[in-house]
């Protein structure tokens, strides 16, 4: 113990650390991260078998992504809200409201769709700020503020649409949700660009993962056993390339897929690597300690809500474009799917715990189950029951694991 010296007396920090732990103990500690990925694989295999291979048919895979895109987009924002220790119940209504706003602007008022899109995103951010304001600065529980928001925007949607459906949208606007990456190579019945995008994305992920692992090795901080590293990223690479190959044989990668991939990448980076992300986790983990550490909690919570509003708006545009119409029923109970996805993905109700990738995987677990059960002809009644039980099981598993760990 010598505080006066700024240079450490012992130059070998690595010798002070214990040898890397066994694979088993590592697995036990990171059960929830691997568990969720494993669950997705098991569910996919299960439905692939029971639907006689329909699940992974290119046309169905494409559908699966389109159907879940708006849930995934919102789950990314919701993860940050939930990690900060709050919740946003209004996202479904905001999605509906923004879709309606877009329809009224574009169809009724003939506003150019790009301008309308920008206004909608800005409107979403403003809605998020309006709710975040009360949560962050007046300490009104987010459950209540956003419950109010849910009612308000559901009502405003009805008012804006005057109870009617408004559509259709111009073709270019529809492309947000129903377009595919263009094929510039002209290979017969095969979208070469899609496959290349898939390969590039997979390569990028591999590159980043390898680089950060090498950094960890240099800093002597490696925790993940090497076989796990290889297995995990091998699986991700194969899945991405195979999926883009499959979809290339149909119409190619949907535009929405690119949007989702970008969002996941950006928000993972923000959550893991930036000071803003770190501080959001700290606020959720222990709000008082974070505040006493000089972290501007109010501003950051305000920001997570503004961001959530903007992403709900984006999801609203995607959803409206996909249906090619804005209806007063759009977005009803979507917030529940989004929140369920985040919790299935391992986030904690009390905040401070959860990952973007986990939330996305959670969204796809829900999505694959919806899709698979529909193909199997299971009625909407039992679908709800099964989804509810899966949510409960996922969270029970988390809590059980935490107690044991």
């Amino acid at each position, binding site marked *: 113990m010598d505080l006066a010296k700024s240079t450490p007396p012992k130059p070998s920090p690595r010798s002070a650390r214990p040898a890397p732990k066994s694979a088993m103990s590592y697995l036990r500690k990171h059960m929830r991260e691997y568990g969720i990925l494993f669950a997705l694989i098991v569910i996919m295999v299960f439905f692939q078998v029971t639907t006689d291979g329909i699940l992974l048919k290119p046309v169905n895979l494409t559908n699966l992504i389109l159907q879940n895109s708006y849930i995934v987009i919102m789950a990314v924002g919701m993860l940050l809200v939930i990690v900060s220790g709050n919740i946003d119940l209004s996202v479904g209504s905001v999605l509906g409201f923004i879709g309606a706003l877009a329809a009224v602007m574009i169809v009724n008022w003939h506003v150019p769709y790009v301008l309308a899109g920008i206004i909608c995103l800005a409107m979403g951010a403003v809605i998020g700020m309006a709710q975040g304001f009360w949560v962050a600065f007046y300490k009104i529980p987010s459950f209540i503020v956003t419950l109010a928001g849910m009612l308000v925007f559901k009502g405003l949607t009805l008012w804006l649409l005057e109870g009617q459906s408004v559509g259709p949208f111009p073709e270019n606007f529809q492309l947000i949700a129903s377009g595919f990456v263009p094929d510039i190579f002209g290979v017969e019945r095969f979208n070469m660009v899609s496959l290349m995008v898939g390969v590039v994305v997979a390569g990028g992920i591999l590159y980043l993962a390898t680089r950060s692992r090498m950094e960890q090795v240099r800093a002597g901080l490696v925790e993940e056993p090497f076989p796990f590293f290889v297995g995990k990223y091998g699986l991700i690479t194969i899945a991405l390339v195979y999926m883009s190959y499959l979809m290339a044989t149909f119409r190619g990668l949907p535009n929405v897929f690119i949007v989702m991939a970008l969002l996941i990448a950006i928000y993972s980076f923000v959550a893991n690597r930036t000071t803003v992300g770190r501080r959001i986790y*700290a606020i959720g983990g*222990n709000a008082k300690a*974070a*505040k006493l550490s000089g972290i501007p909690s109010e501003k950051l919570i305000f920001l997570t809500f503004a961001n959530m509003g903007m992403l709900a708006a984006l999801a609203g545009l995607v959803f409206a474009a996909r249906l090619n119409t804005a209806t007063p029923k759009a977005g009803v109970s979507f917030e529940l799917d989004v929140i369920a996805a985040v919790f299935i993905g391992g986030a904690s109700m009390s905040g401070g715990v959860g990952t973007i990738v986990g939330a996305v995987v959670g969204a796809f677990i829900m999505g694959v189950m919806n899709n698979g059960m529909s193909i199997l002809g299971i009625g909407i009644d039992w679908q709800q029951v099964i989804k509810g039980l899966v949510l409960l099981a996922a969270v029970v598993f988390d809590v059980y694991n935490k107690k044991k760990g």
Partner: protein
Amino acid sequence: MDTILEMRGITKEFPGVKALDNVNVSVRRGEIRALVGENGAGKSTLMKVLSGVYPAGTYDGEILYEGQPMAFRGIADSEELGIIIIHQELALVPELSIAENIFLGNEIAHRGIIDWPETKRRTVALLEKVGLDEHPETKVDDLGLGKQQLVEIAKALSKDVRLLILDEPTSSLNERDSDALLDLLIDLRDREGLSAIMISHKLNEVSKVADSLTVLRDGMTVTSRDMSDSSYGEAEIIRDMVGRSMSDRYPARTPKIGETVMEVRNWMVHHPTHTGRLVVDNVNFHLRRGEVLGIAGLMGAGRTELAMSLFGQEYGRAITGEVRINGAHADLTTIPKAIKAGLAYVTEDRKSYGLVLDETIRRNIPLANLEAVAKRGVVDDRREASVADEYRRRINIKCASIEQETVNLSGGNQQKVVLSKWLFADPEILILDEPTRGIDVGAKFEIYTIIAELAAMGKSIIVISSEMPELLGITDRLYVMNEGRFVGELPTPEATQEKIMAMIVNSGE
């Protein structure tokens, strides 16, 4: 007199700490046994073992109650047999009435429907027994702490208590309430034959009520005596509690004190909800470079409130007064501003206010100065890790690795993580609020050493502590605080516990 309770060879370990090591305690029927020892000696842990808070199987050793071996799985098991524990922090529901609190979880009911007349009748009888003249329907929130303590005892009596355990029952009471409580205990023992264990470190109280005494130190039984043993007086008890002379418990240091760094003038702080109530009343003090300044006082004197009102006005309303740092007016109105002005506040409650428990050591340490390990808002993992590792070595945080979650560290090591966090923010002035509460003796010495080294580096340190020996051992100068006011100032070499107590007691006049 036969033996009602015997605990034999109790050993209890936590990750990194052996809290109890082969402890033996017995209680005879109808006696009050005092359990004394320093903070962290293991008294509360022992009582948690006895009451089943730590269930059978999580500790080693044997509990014999009424001659039978016991294996409690939880508090309900021990309560059923009449072992009732009253914790230091009272377990009353402030919004409920006295009667509701007394019979909470133990309601007088027929098929789930509460019999209110009977509840009230019995409450009145119990209140009479404990000498509390209050209506059964009075809200507990409206009672003072002394009366709340009596409600706790009434609650214990309602459960047919056979062995009452009191964990520092007078720690938050004033002298009159304390006396009343102790008289009540004696009365219950003599009239009702109550057996009790009283944890305390106030030796005058022990002499007053206890029939026998057990001293714990560092988790071990040092001695068990009858109070009638005249060769064993207060000096001997203190010797056994402390176990070593004062000089070994604190690192030696030669203070190098420079110019005045911080000056606080006419500082007034009001209670955040009770408007008009002054919590800090016209406090003036100064702090010099390289100085370790102590603030002594009893619990509730307003010391933490003073510290938190200075640190970004985190506590209080209608704060007035001036703070000058290095001669210039300092703006401390928000926490980021206070940190920027060179202040750090290490909280008394590290679990609730100091650490993000689910996160690793690595992620906790840079939290108050995240920019320093980040570039343009992006955290550099390697820098962060090397910073955390440097502090791990420099102040000797005992852990498997910096990737360990802080929730799994012992109290002393958690405190070192909190200290590291603030050292990394590089403050000029550190306010340490009860820096050694609840940590073991070895770790205390290390914390004292860190404080001494920080002072030697020219940092200025304010230590708030309820342990007077600690203040006398590590500070250069002392202020005494009572009921929101500074009631005395002493150079530490001239101070004694008696002088400080006298200042507190006389300040009311």
